[in-house]
């Protein structure tokens, strides 16, 4: 059983460009959350998707958007990239979005570098 997978592993973009990151949740999981982790800091919650809709959102601008597909996979899109968007982007999945005890399983992350 594959865990959470993310693609690509690494990505280099320039300022102003747009980027799309992809995530496949663990089998049996239907909720996907995205986090941004800057170097030396803890992951910061971006948003969460359940039943193809955004359920919660952290303190991130509208340049950050997402999508969840019927197969529960998800994409994170970032427009008008800034140097400060350089970070490790983590995807986490959990079996349901309605339980406070859900354990979130993280993927290996996508390392985005903005030049």
């Amino acid at each position: 059983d594959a865990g959470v997978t993310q693609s690509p592993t690494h990505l280099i973009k320039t300022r102003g460009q747009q980027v799309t990151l992809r995530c496949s949740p663990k089998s049996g999981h239907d909720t996907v959350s995205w986090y941004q982790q800057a170097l030396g800091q803890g992951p910061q919650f971006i948003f969460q998707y359940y039943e193809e809709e955004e359920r919660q959102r952290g303190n991130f601008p509208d340049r950050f958007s997402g999508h969840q597909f019927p197969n529960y996979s998800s994409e994170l899109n970032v427009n008008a990239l800034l140097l400060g968007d350089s970070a490790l982007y983590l995807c986490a999945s959990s079996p349901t979005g309605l339980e406070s005890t859900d354990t979130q399983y993280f993927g290996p992350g996508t390392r985005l570098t903005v030049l």
Partner: protein
Amino acid sequence: LAKTTQPISMDSYEGQEVNITCSHNNIATNDYITWYQQFPSQGPRFIIQGYKTKVTNEVASLFIPADRKSSTLSLPRVSLSDTAVYYCLVGDTGVDSSYKLIFGSGTRLLVRP
């Protein structure tokens, strides 16, 4: 804003027991306490979760006092491979009962030979 406070770093030696304490004074009634481990350039890995008293699994124990305002992660007989960042976090349940994790800065554990 992180809802937890934990030491920035800790040092230990192989074979010792390591206890990392986390403060969460504003924990909500329905919040569980979860600990994750993270190695450089990898995603966090779930270690243990608890609500009250003591929880033990194959890798760690979690002690939670009755007031639930703090918790202690105990790692028995650490090895060099336990060198990592350890995050203590509580959940944040939204109005629609959705659940997100709020990470702090974590505790950097260094295990020496």
